[in-house]
């Protein structure tokens, strides 16, 4: 009986030159079909990923539930149902960088929360749900779907909503973890 290799599909929501690009490269090298979504999918780094690793680019404002639904529909159509979703949205609006908590305008804080926190919610029902599957894929119980929200926040951010200085030394524990792995 012939065997057909069925590639897993990964979707990275929130794309830039950092963790998302590294994940996209690694997952593609591991044999996954990879899509990456960003409000601006025409960033040079994302175009480069498309050329070098065949990463599919999608335009999506993940703070809008309808946009997320349309994103997943497009990914399922183009690549297949994702079995790994990396929620990698920073969320901070441009004007909020470098400001102390007492200087941040409430509107910016609300928009940042909406981008960073709320945007993870519309994506959650989409991974692992039957409507996101294709008929030729395994039933849910035979699969292992993953949702990996990343939260990049240097230690200083816990004391000050927006770090005014980005030269933050990672905590000893996190530095040790990076080196041991």
């Amino acid at each position: 009986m012939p065997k057909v290799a069925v590639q897993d599909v990964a979707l990275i929501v929130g794309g830039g030159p950092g963790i998302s690009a590294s994940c996209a490269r690694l997952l593609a090298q591991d044999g996954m079909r990879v899509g990456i979504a960003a409000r601006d999918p025409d960033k040079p780094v994302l175009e480069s990923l498309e050329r070098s690793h065949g990463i599919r680019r999608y335009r999506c404002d993940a703070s809008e539930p309808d946009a997320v639904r349309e994103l997943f529909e497009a990914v399922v159509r183009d690549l297949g149902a994702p079995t790994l979703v990396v929620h990698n949205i920073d969320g901070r609006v441009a004007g909020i960088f470098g400001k102390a908590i007492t200087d941040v305008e409430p509107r910016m804080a609300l928009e940042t929360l909406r981008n960073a926190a709320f945007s993870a919610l519309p994506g959650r029902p989409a991974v692992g749900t039957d409507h996101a599957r294709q008929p030729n894929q395994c039933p849910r119980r035979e699969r292992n779907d993953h949702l990996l929200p990343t939260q990049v926040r240097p230690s200083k951010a816990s004391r000050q909503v927006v770090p005014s200085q980005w030269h933050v030394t990672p905590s000893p524990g996190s530095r040790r973890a990076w080196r041991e792995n």
Partner: protein
Amino acid sequence: MPQGIHVANVPIDAAIGWTQEDGSRAHRRAGTTVDDNMADPDRIAGDLSATASPASVDVGI
């Protein structure tokens, strides 16, 4: 009832310095790494990948 969905929240307690064309690592606002004070996104991606499942499955038809 288990839904077969793994959720891993990954707080990353570091600024991210990604590799530049000249091989150095830098953050878009903070500049070049000093004394290895930024996390390497390639290393983080490796950890995330290890958290997830193998990349593909073989299905008999």
